[in-house]
């Protein structure tokens, strides 16, 4: 065990850990401010914000300090390293550094989108001087809104930390950004005609510690202090990036990646970042409907649910079978509720996993301009475009001896094997084609639970408007069997209900939807999902080892 002393406080670091001063200090609860250093990028030590005093403890107990301040990000710690991050010398250096960084900064915080989550503000407040001695006019550079389709650059706010440049070179591999000119004239820019439009481009906005790189999608929409963040999981693909959903007054404004080494690391792709817009789609289903005598009528939830229940019971007593399609967009809890509900009505009921949308092949990053993947892979966008195939399959596998492909279920449905089917949608890009929907044209009862219209609605006898992922709570299991919690961030449009609530009421349980209790129930019943009671679920998520074996 190596011992490092930070501000007179000893902290143990593991023998295999390769830490720099900033990381070691954060273990001791000491913040060393830094702009250019980022745990997922290479070290350049250019911002000089993390200057600290570093020394060595000799075997005889004396401490030999280095005479000059050294950048903490660039200095690895070893056994006996002594870091002093709160001396007058260090504090003076920080003040001087901040004053230099702010020389050409326009100080337009009121109109800057980053204000409120800006490291320049935070560090100026905590470590800065509070005044500038610059008498000369500031060097104001023109803004560049052509940096990318989703990105705009306020050149004058930039402090040249080059995080964005390193990101495009090291993580996305596309290397669109670079530093042009030198000294006080330094600017971030692109090569003419090569904007930052790679699939990970949005991350440079998150990486920017100041308000220089802004997302055009979020620009001027909200002040960040109005946003409330909820931990969630991106639904774009089976990578299952940990994200936060930022909303205000029931309107989602942005998704930001949340650091989770188990899931994806630090970043997320643009497809997921901007892929939540369907949540506020005008086309959302908002009225529960029943079809009788060929045309649908809108009815109250209680009436529709009662009708669904009686139709299912009637179908369960008949000669034909009951079937349910569990969408891979459902949470584990919802899949469990539906499976239990259908199986308790008819033990022979058929359960199938809904269509899993696969687009192309997995896309690995960094990728050079010719499209060759450079090892080691730092980010992957999966071809499987649904968040919870593994979780739903685990639930279905618990009830069915073998997994029935969706096509097989369609074939059985069109051959008249079923008297009632319960269909769950959830894929915002559509999960069923016109032709596939034909299979349900002759089924007596077709219950569709979805939030967007789909071709199958014309055959539906009951339409239950459900919620998108920002409106529900539950577990999703990603490609490697990592179970993560998505939390409810906003209330859905009037008339819609989260799937969990619909299914909770349909299965005749009393009171409100209780995810914790349900998780305990699932963990006890399904060995593959036994990890669902693990408290780590609320932070990083839990790897379900057994789920991994059955799904890979």
């Amino acid at each position, binding site marked *: 065990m190596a011992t490092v002393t930070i501000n007179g406080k000893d902290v143990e670091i593991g023998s295999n850990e390769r830490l720099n001063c900033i990381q070691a200090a954060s273990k001791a609860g000491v913040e060393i401010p830094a702009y250019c250093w980022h745990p997922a990028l290479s070290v350049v030590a250019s911002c000089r914000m993390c200057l600290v005093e570093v020394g060595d403890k000799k075997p005889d107990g004396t401490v030999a300090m280095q005479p000059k301040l050294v950048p903490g990000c660039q200095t690895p710690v070893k056994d006996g390293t002594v870091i002093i991050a709160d001396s007058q010398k260090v504090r003076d250096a920080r003040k001087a550094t901040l004053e230099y960084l702010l020389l050409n900064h326009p100080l*337009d915080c*009121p109109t800057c989108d980053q204000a409120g989550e800006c490291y320049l503000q935070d560090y100026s407040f905590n470590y800065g001087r509070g005044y500038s001695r610059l008498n000369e006019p500031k060097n104001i550079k023109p803004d560049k809104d052509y940096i990318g389709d989703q990105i705009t650059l306020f050149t004058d706010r930039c402090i040249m930390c080059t995080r964005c440049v390193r990101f495009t070179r090291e993580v996305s591999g596309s290397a669109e950004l670079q530093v042009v000119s030198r000294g006080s004239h330094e600017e971030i820019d692109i090569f003419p005609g090569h904007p930052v439009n790679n699939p990970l481009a949005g991350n440079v906005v998150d990486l920017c510690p100041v308000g220089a790189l802004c997302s055009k999608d979020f620009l001027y929409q909200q002040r960040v202090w109005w946003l409330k963040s909820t931990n969630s999981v991106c639904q774009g693909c089976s990578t299952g990036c940990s994200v936060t959903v930022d909303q205000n007054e029931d309107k989602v404004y942005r998704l930001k990646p949340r650091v989770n080494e188990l899931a994806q690391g630090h970043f997320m792709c643009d497809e997921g970042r901007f892929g939540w817009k369907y949540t506020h789609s005008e086309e959302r289903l908002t009225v529960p409907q029943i079809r009788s005598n060929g045309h649908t009528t809108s009815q109250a939830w209680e009436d529709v649910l009662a009708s669904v229940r009686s139709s299912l019971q009637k179908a369960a007593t008949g000669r034909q079978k009951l079937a349910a399609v569990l969408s891979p967009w459902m949470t584990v809890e919802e899949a469990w509720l539906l499976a239990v509900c259908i199986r308790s009505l008819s033990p022979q009921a058929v359960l199938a996993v809904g269509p899993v949308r696969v687009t192309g092949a997995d896309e690995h990053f960094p990728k050079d301009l010719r499209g060759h993947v450079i090892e080691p892979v730092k980010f992957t966008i999966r071809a499987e475009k649904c968040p919870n195939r593994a979780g739903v399959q685990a639930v279905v596998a618990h009830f069915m001896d073998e997994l029935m492909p969706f096509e097989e279920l369609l074939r059985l449905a069109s051959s008249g094997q079923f008297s009632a089917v319960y269909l769950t949608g959830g894929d915002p890009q559509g999960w069923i084609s016109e032709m596939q929907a034909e299979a349900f044209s002759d089924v007596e009862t077709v219950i569709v639970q979805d939030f967007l219209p789909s071709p199958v609605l014309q055959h539906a006898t009951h339409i239950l408007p459900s919620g998108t992922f920002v409106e529900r709570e539950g577990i999703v299991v990603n490609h490697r069997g990592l179970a993560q919690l998505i939390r409810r961030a906003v209330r859905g449009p009037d008339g819609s209900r989260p799937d969990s609530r619909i299914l909770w009421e349909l299965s005749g349980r009393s009171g409100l939807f209780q995810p914790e209790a349900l998780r305990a129930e699932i963990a006890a019943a399904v060995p593959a999902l036994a990890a669902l009671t693990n408290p780590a679920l609320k932070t990083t998520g839990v790897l379900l080892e057994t789920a991994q074996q059955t799904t890979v």
Partner: protein
Amino acid sequence: MSETKRKKHVRWVEEPELGFWESTFVPAIMQGLKTTLKHVVDRKPVTQQFPEVKPELPLHYRGVHRLNRDEQDRVKCVACMMCATACPARCITIEAQAAPPEWPDRDKFPKSFVLDELRCIYCGMCEEACPVDAIELTHIYDLTGESRSDLMYDREKLLGVFDRTKNDPRDPVRTGRGKLGPASEFVQLPAVGPATTVPVSDRSAKSETAGVIRTTGREGQQ
């Protein structure tokens, strides 16, 4: 309640004895008649003759808001939403939009600016918070409307208040700030304090260059 406790809380005061003249009540009657007669003679009204006569309001009176215009007649507001953040009644709703390219001096402006005058408590916090002196409270107090929506003042209405009041001596445009507040006025900021603590004997401490090392005493503070 016991006798001792009552004594503690209640102090009994004796009525003062009446003197001879007081017991005749003549002075009191005369005093009263004097007031009556004064009103018979004096015909100046004491009530305010509103609305024929407008009241004299103190200069710091806070009435209906206005949105100021700049020299080019554009709305001065930069849609920073500081007022909406400061507002304790949450009556300000702003939607920002990127400024057109012909406005190089600003990044954004309010696409819509709605102030609910019914919800407002006229505390003046918005005026305090505004970094560009765009929103100000005027002397207009007699606010009327036929419906609630009439008193949802939008950008145009608030600019109209400015046009109505800008020449009123009681509502001067109080702008004393620059484009983005005092922090952006570099010229006016005093050159103070050295970058790092420097001993008085240091060569740099004697430098006469603007903005560099004047005093060593001032940088004791952190």
